[in-house]
């Protein structure tokens, strides 16, 4: 867990963009997540909350692109 937290933090540090053209961007597109349709809604809730609202990861996807 510690190693994963380190990798995640380092990749985010390397790739995070706070602004673009003076406007807020707060994004990294270099770290992604896949999966969710087999998980519980509480699990999906925490994934979106931490990864997107907390860490600025926008590349989230799952099986339910319908």
């Amino acid at each position, binding site marked *: 867990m510690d190693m*994963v937290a380190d990798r995640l933090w380092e990749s985010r540090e390397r790739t995070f963009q706070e602004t673009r053209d003076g406007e807020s961007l707060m994004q990294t597109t270099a770290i992604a997540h896949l999966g*969710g349709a087999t998980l519980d809604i509480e699990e999906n809730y925490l994934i*979106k909350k931490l990864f997107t609202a907390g860490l600025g990861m926008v590349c989230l996807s799952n099986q339910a692109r319908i």
Partner: protein
Amino acid sequence: MPGLGTSFGRGGATTAQQDLSNSDAIIIMGSSMAENHPVGFQWVMEARERGAKIIHVDPRFNRTSAMVDIWVPLRAGSDILFLGGLINYVLKNNKEFREYVVHYTNAATILRDDFRDTEDLDGFFSGWDAEKAKYDPESWLYKGAPSKNGGREKAGHSEAAAGHGKDRGGEAQDAGKFESDISLDHPRCVFQVMRRHFSRYTPEMVERYCGVPKEVFLKVAETFSSASGPEKTGAICYAVGWTQHSKGVQIIRSAAILQLLLGNIGRPGGGILALRGHASIQGSTDIPTLYDILPGYLPMPFFEADSHKLKDYIKKHKARTGSWSGFDKYFISLMKAYYGNAATKENDYGFNWLPRVTGDHSHFGYWLDMADGKMEGLFVMGQNPAVGASNGRLERKALANLKWLVVRDMVETETASFWLDSPEVERGELSPESIATEVFLFPAAGTAEKEGTFTNTQRLLQYREKPVDPPGDARSDTWFMFHLGRRIKEKARNDPRPRNAGLNALTWDYPTEGKHAEPGVESVLKEINGYTVADHKQLKHIQALKNDGSTACGAWIYCGVFPEDEKNRANERNPQDLLGHGWGFVWPNDCRIIYNRASARPDGKPWSERKKLVWWDEEKKQWAGLDNADYPKDLAPETKDNLKNGKGVEALGGARPFTLHPDGVGWLYVASGLKDGPLPTHYEPLESPVANPLYKQNANPAALKRERPDNPYANSPGDPRFPHVLSTYRLTEHHTAGGMTRTLSHLAELQPELFTEVSPELADEIGLTHGDWATISTPRAIIEARVLVTRRMRPLWIDGQRVHQVGLPYHWGYKGRVKGDVVNDLLAISEEPNVRIMETKALVCDIQPGRRPHGRELLKELEQKMEPA
């Protein structure tokens, strides 16, 4: 989701599976329900025993076809032609439920003078920009509606957008302003435009290009269109056999139009059942792990001029009339759930801590970036893209470009072991020695080893208690996310840079229990339900949400699931009636059949005794009946609407059942929100044996092919190298990419080996022997499978030529107790324009007797295969 979402307002099945037993006719199409939803299929059988006619439309005779009255084989990919044929039949023969159509749909709405149909422009609607390869939907708007122009992206039409968001319906437009003609005679009213649009979708056309004999088609048309009117209803069931096409959303739109015309939405025995392919497909879009939406279908902010500030973003997405008039309440309450006390009016409730969407960040969008070396890390949780995703060769090779990969699953999946035993290693394209990707494999708890909630195919939230602890180091994903979050937040704690403001503010104080410090799952569900900020009281109803920061709510559509501290309605197990009230909780507001205001006439009385569901109780002055009303409880039927100037749901008056739409009616015609047109149009699949019989434009012009050297296509129409139609499907015994089933001895034994289903005619033609091997190829891959020669597959006569269809279940891979080639390697990465799903159900292939070569020889053969014929 946008197919149903734009038509009715919500991207969910409109009814419950039990309610199918009330149907007078059922069409199952794009689904083998008996095979993949066997529990729900009992209600189809119940309907049949009560006299309903059951119709199964499918290229392949399967376990569903065996149990129905009429099986209709059709050419894979010709669905809109078939459904358009049914719509045309209804319109030509005046079979529509006139009173329902006039009052509850936008049939009477008049369109702008500059709108042009695909009939006028040979396969294009007006507004096509050939250079950008996208539509400007301005001319699709209702006549009299305010222009959406102004240099900004229109809601639902952003370059970067997928269609999952609220903006899928373009709800932010002011559709409350329009002109209408309830005689439905005006030449530019939706009804007449639609009549012209579908006029060439004739029984003859269906026979010639779907391969369905005219008399069979007419039998289906007569049977289903008779399940309509005050006394009768019919239902339609579909699954990924409709969604996984380059025009999947528009196939579902066709069903929506048919059901609205027949008055079959919001009524018992009616509806459209979207049969989902995983336990929580519905749940994972409601509470999304998708890039373009936040919980409750609130759109992610895009990096656009009108999304830099909260007030502009709200202005863009908030509607004046209908339920989306509460957009600011839903959104600000979510920000309060995410960021707690740190989210204040002064800082726009943390709006600028949210990242902005800048492009296609969906599965294929970022995977192609990965293939091009632009990604660093990836978490894969409960999905197995090495087997389950299109163009597996590209997918697996891309993984080798990552710095690190985290896989959480119950077994070591092919995704986790791509570096060791993938076909690419065997062929020398990848080697373990040279792959630098650091792979972390975490054992995940299974469904029976953790607490949590699934939202199933009929919007039903069911909470599971934990029967057993997970073995060894296996943990739930709630545990993983919580403890990963704890560690990451610790790293950011003393780091005041703007990038960490949201992370530091993120509420993450879930209570833990047990020796592994497992976070309390119910505490997460309580946050999703919502609470008052000041005194932390659970919210009881969506109407309690506020836009001033005084309420927090993780997903507005789920509000009411946990209305009191000790009351988890998802965990209720006391069913009271057929629709299951008392068992779990259905969103929204425990309405089991949504839009159920439409089950009563405009005056509030049931259409008939036989089909009553919800009605106006004159004594109590409120809506009453067999379901919770999907309508403001005390809004009387005679209340006049005030669409021109009113605000909120009340502005819809007492007789507009589709409350999420600003005009309160079902949309036969979608003026804004779909990227490939306001009406469904038949296009051929991206790879097809035949040319589009209706228009010069062959395939959906808005679909994205993502064509590149590692994602090549066959020529279309009619590539002689790949003459047959290929369709993939699932079997009862295995689950999708097989990680959970090929590893189990009893299931592996039941379906031990990959096979391909072919007709006796095709077997004769090319010399295939039952039980022997065949090699199947597309421009992406060559695989082998055992041959199953069966009458379940039939060649079809398409425009004078015999077209063969080949069937392949896709569950096998290079791990597990039983192994086989990865069928999805055959598929191209392609994106339907609205939701960015790939086309799996209709492509072209070659099939030859014998086994495929191995190693580098296979790549050579693939190259030779691609040489022009």
